């Protein structure tokens, strides 16, 4: 298997990367883990003229926490993120989603930020990012801007990143402590494959067990991960009850526009969205009632 010819650049600084992207625009691609890009290059679906390999740039492989926000650098591998105690403590739903990404050998190389920038509508990490109200830091020679998760994904493999911008960091606001629970659940056709439906949910309860905050992100069924806002609103003030999860699941299924694919008709995917949302909420609630985050 041979990808088409490209010019290979392996800069040592981010400024050099921004320079390459500014000069070559859509003809250049950033190579991080390569677990999606190289596959597409092997098939010649992607034929970039310039490949900018960021793997030799120091300082991009760190997970840090600052002011209650987890920061994940552009070279943090999915495997590192999945097992990171920091991410597990502050944003456990991101660890849980991360463990479902492909297989260990892919996660050892694939990066968190790369998966987000690739924007596969089925991918787990973008779904979790949207539930967490995360952000992507985009940089170019023109400067830096911060893109909220919900504005990042425009459609299948399409993001708000401009041609000359690189996603340098993902930011995840830590979940509130106390009675907060989260869960990521997905349905795949075979182990390790992309889900047909994946749902990340976050629930916060007050001392009386009433829901004070609800976040639901539905991935894989639509053309990008999306929040189920009507279902979230309907949950506020309710108590943890199977009937409540069922109602929320049905509301969430009505809010999305499922794509029919070979892996399932629109009706089937809508049904899955309802069921997976219900189960995800039920699990998040059980964890909230335990009083701490759990994965």
């Amino acid at each position: 298997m041979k990808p088409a010819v490209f010019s290979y650049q392996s800069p040592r600084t981010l400024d050099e990367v921004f320079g390459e992207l500014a000069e070559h625009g859509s003809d250049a691609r950033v190579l991080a883990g390569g677990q999606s890009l190289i596959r597409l290059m092997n098939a010649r679906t992607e034929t970039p003229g310039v490949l900018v390999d960021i793997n030799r740039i120091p300082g991009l492989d760190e997970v840090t926490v600052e002011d209650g926000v987890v920061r994940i650098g552009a070279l943090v591998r999915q495997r590192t993120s999945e097992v990171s105690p920091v991410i597990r403590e502050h944003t456990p739903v991101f660890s849980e989603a991360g463990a479902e990404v492909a297989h260990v050998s892919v996660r050892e190389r694939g990066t968190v930020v790369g998966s987000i920038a690739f924007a596969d509508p089925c991918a787990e990490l973008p779904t979790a990012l949207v539930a967490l109200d995360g952000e992507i830091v985009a940089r170019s020679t023109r400067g830096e801007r911060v893109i909220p998760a919900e504005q990042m994904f425009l459609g299948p493999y399409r993001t708000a990143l401009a041609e000359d911008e690189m996603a340098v960091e993902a930011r995840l606001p830590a979940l509130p402590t106390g009675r907060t629970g989260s869960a990521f659940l997905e349905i795949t056709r075979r182990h390790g494959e992309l889900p047909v439906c994946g749902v990340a949910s976050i629930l916060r309860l007050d001392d009386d067990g009433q829901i004070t905050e609800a976040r639901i992100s539905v991935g894989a069924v639509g053309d990008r991960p999306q929040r189920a806002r009507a279902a979230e609103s309907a949950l506020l003030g309710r108590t943890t009850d199977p009937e409540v999860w069922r109602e929320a699941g049905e509301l969430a299924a009505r809010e999305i526009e499922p794509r029919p694919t070979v892996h399932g008709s629109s009706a089937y995917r809508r049904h899955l969205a309802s069921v997976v949302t219900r189960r995800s909420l039920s699990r998040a609630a059980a964890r909230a009632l335990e009083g701490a985050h759990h994965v």
Partner: protein
Amino acid sequence: MSDKQRITVTVNDQEHDLLVEPRTLALDLLRDELRLTGTHAGCEQGVCGACTILVDGKITRACLMFAVQLDGCSVETVESLGSPDGTMHPIQRAFSENHGLQCGFCTPGMLMVTQELLRREPRPDAETARAAIAGNHCRCTGYQHIVASVCAAGRAMSEAEHQHVDRQDVEHQGARA
């Protein structure tokens, strides 16, 4: 044709100084340039696991990495396991004795995954073994015998290790006496 790049890579403890075209995959470097054809080219899109190698000790799909990215890295392939005289590595012997292969196409990947697993988990149970090989496809065995082989390799290597330690103890005591 884009310019070739010079890389230095250690493969199975042997250092190579090579000129590679950037679009050459790590897989093709191993197979075509270094003639290490034990690493198998299966799907070439990161799904089947037949091309699994270890790069700096981490399991890696050789079809999803460019050879040029191996500069400065240490690579282990399935050829690192056996000896040229035909003596099998304990992992290979376990697969042989437990019918862990039929056609053998997926076997190099299975062996390398096992090698990595046993380094961090010397005595895996069946569930751990199953999780470790989850990213590797086998269309012959139905996996049961592969799981048994991985567990058996762990047992055999742990016992060999203990016997080695026991022997050292005996020699140590003998030296003291």
